[in-house]
């Protein structure tokens, strides 16, 4: 049963009606304007946007399945930085981009690009230590990453990687091509893994 059929099934079964937003098509991030009453000074130059695209695609490249660019991750990253992060992250993200611009990232060879990102990854491991990030459990069912507040924004690499993965693995195409999507499991079973078992997504 696909999701749409499943929704109609639920509606029919219970004689109710789900409201229109449920049936809306997926949103796109391009041309996004931050929500009303909330304005931020965070914008990227065209070349910076190209770097974001390139780095996102290197984190989640197109293979037999879509890559980060195919599912709109670069625009998602910019939107998320505008809407969900404050000045310190805007600054650290911009600094990270600036340092890649200085290295003429877009003009480097594939091997050189890879080496630059590996270095960024190694540096961020060190930088993240200050945050003493911890997984905590809150209440009955919420997991939360707890961090010690820092004046400096989260490292560029951490932001890039987290937002690329979030954008990709929660996108419709990303989910459908990566996981076994089960919006309505209908049962709970402790099972054994099949060969090449994909993760279930719900």
């Amino acid at each position, binding site marked *: 049963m696909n999701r749409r059929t499943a929704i109609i099934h639920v509606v029919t079964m219970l004689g109710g009606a789900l409201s229109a*937003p449920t049936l809306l098509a997926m949103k796109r991030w391009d041309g996004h304007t931050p929500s009303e009453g909330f304005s931020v000074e965070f914008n990227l130059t065209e070349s910076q946007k190209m770097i974001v695209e390139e780095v996102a695609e290197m984190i989640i490249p197109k293979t037999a399945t879509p890559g980060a660019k195919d599912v709109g991750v670069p625009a998602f990253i910019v939107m998320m930085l505008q*809407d969900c992060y404050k000045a310190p992250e805007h600054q650290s993200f911009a600094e990270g981009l600036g340092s890649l611009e200085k290295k003429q990232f877009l003009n480097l060879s594939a091997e050189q690009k890879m080496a630059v990102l590996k270095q960024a990854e190694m540096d961020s491991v060190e930088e993240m230590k200050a945050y003493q990030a911890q997984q905590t459990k809150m209440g009955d069912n919420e997991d939360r990453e707890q961090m010690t507040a820092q004046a400096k924004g989260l490292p560029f690499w951490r932001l890039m990687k987290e937002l690329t993965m979030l954008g990709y693995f929660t996108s419709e195409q990303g989910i459908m091509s*990566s996981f076994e999507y089960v*919006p309505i499991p209908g049962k709970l079973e402790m*099972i*054994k893994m099949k060969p090449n078992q994909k*993760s279930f997504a719900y």
Partner: protein
Amino acid sequence: MNLNLKSDKAHTFDAIVVGSGMTGGMAAKELTERGLQVLMIERGREVKHIEDYDTAMKGPWEFEHRGRVSIHSAEEYWANNRFGTLANEETGPFFTDDKKNPYIEKRPFDWIRAYHTGGKSMHWGRQSYRMNKKDFEANAKEGIAIDWPIRYEDLEPWYTHVEKFVGISGQAEGWEVLPDGHYLPAMPMSAPERYFRETMMKKLNRPVTIGRVANLTKPQPWHTDLGRASCQYRSKCARGCPYGGYYSSLSGSIPAARKTNKLTVLHDTIASEIIYDEKTQKAKGVRVINQHTMGVEEFFAKIVFLNAGSMNSAALLLNSTSSRFPTGLGNDSDQVGRNIMDHHLGVGANATVEGFENDYIFGQRPNALYIPRFRNWGSDKKDFLRGYGYQGGASKSDWKRGITMNGFGASFKEDMSRPGTWTMGFGGFGEILPDPSNRMFLDKDKKDKWGIPMIVFDAAFGENELAMRKDMMASAVEMLEVAGFKNVAGFNRQDTHPGLGIHDMGTARMGKDPKTSVLNKFNQVHTCKNVFVTDGAAMVSSSCVNPSITYMAMTARAADHAVKELKKQNL
């Protein structure tokens, strides 16, 4: 105010219930089923079961910020945001905008509210445990605060009554610390959880059980009669369940009350005062203000049930002044608003589990493991009073593990599409002792936009809670280490305050003596017996178990008593 006779009649009911949440719904059900015409007053907007669960069936990609909270929402929902991601686009519509409904913090208080039909029953954690016999005796034995006027045996039949109606999945275990109730079939444990249960019993003699949760594993006829169906294991309960798979006022008690044709519900209507009749020495009704039009009206009834949520029920008492009650209705003892309790949380430990590589789970279990209190129980003795329980369990890590691990590119992407290793973790829920200096009161000068005095909170954790938190972390670490798990890491959030457990309670406590308590053993205001307070405000101590099922049992018991007293013309 002049009301003509006709509208007077239209404004008169047998009972008024203030609030439509966990206990308001139960009060309305129990009172209407006993033949009373009930008016339910809800301050927030109407949410219709199923129809208004706008986010229930959305895919992850249909939420603009993908489960994250925007800065804009974080500012509007500033108190909610202290908990976590409550104000995201999945569940935000069922929490209350703190900016539009501000409160004052003399000392920080994390007040999470849900102003709409169903209140917090929309998104409660659904964990349902009975308090045990010793919970009701501890205050008296230890000389803390005052004694409960009731014992476990008084509530026992009412626990049974509400458990059956609600539908709770769980495992009867025969442990004194966690009395068994009436359960639908238990949800299964995963392989590492079964190993953990055995190991804890063998090596530490600590019991572990599957959570007792208000999700239907096997609906009974009285559930399906209300249109409720089996849990679908989506674990998206907090968005509202179109199947009625979990219990809320919306899926359970309100539909049951409506079936009697004796329930009237007013939305967007704020109860501002209880009207006290000096002649009869009883409450005669409730004054209300319309959220939007600001219009004031009065409604009349023989009995009034306060189920507005502990803090708002107390605020309503405090705001109901008269020449008999200059400091608030029923407040001769000066205990209204005092003794705020909650469960302190945000303490525990996580670990990674080696092995069980071939085990996996199909479906999302809306439930966890439960480790009942073991501290200061039996022969155990610590340098703090009372104890705590843990909730948590094992899960197989998903793509999110990749955020903090090194790696990127094609093989990393491929790897992220497959489940990773198991992780296991627990967070505690600790009992908070009653302390009269932990309180809320009404600000003399500052009023909200409806002209009602604003609530001021002045509460903090005491030494007992802080000592308990250290032990809560240490014991969680110990258990995960004893189980042989790796990368065990304890956590103890330092940025939490009372309220964050969303189990706020105690502000109109029951007791035997009107000099030291607000309510009698049937939740009646000592000095105004036709007013009942049956939400968490009535609690005399907090136990460490999730309280909703206890509130519901108290409510059903009080409603039964109220109707009997009405029949005897005692009210």
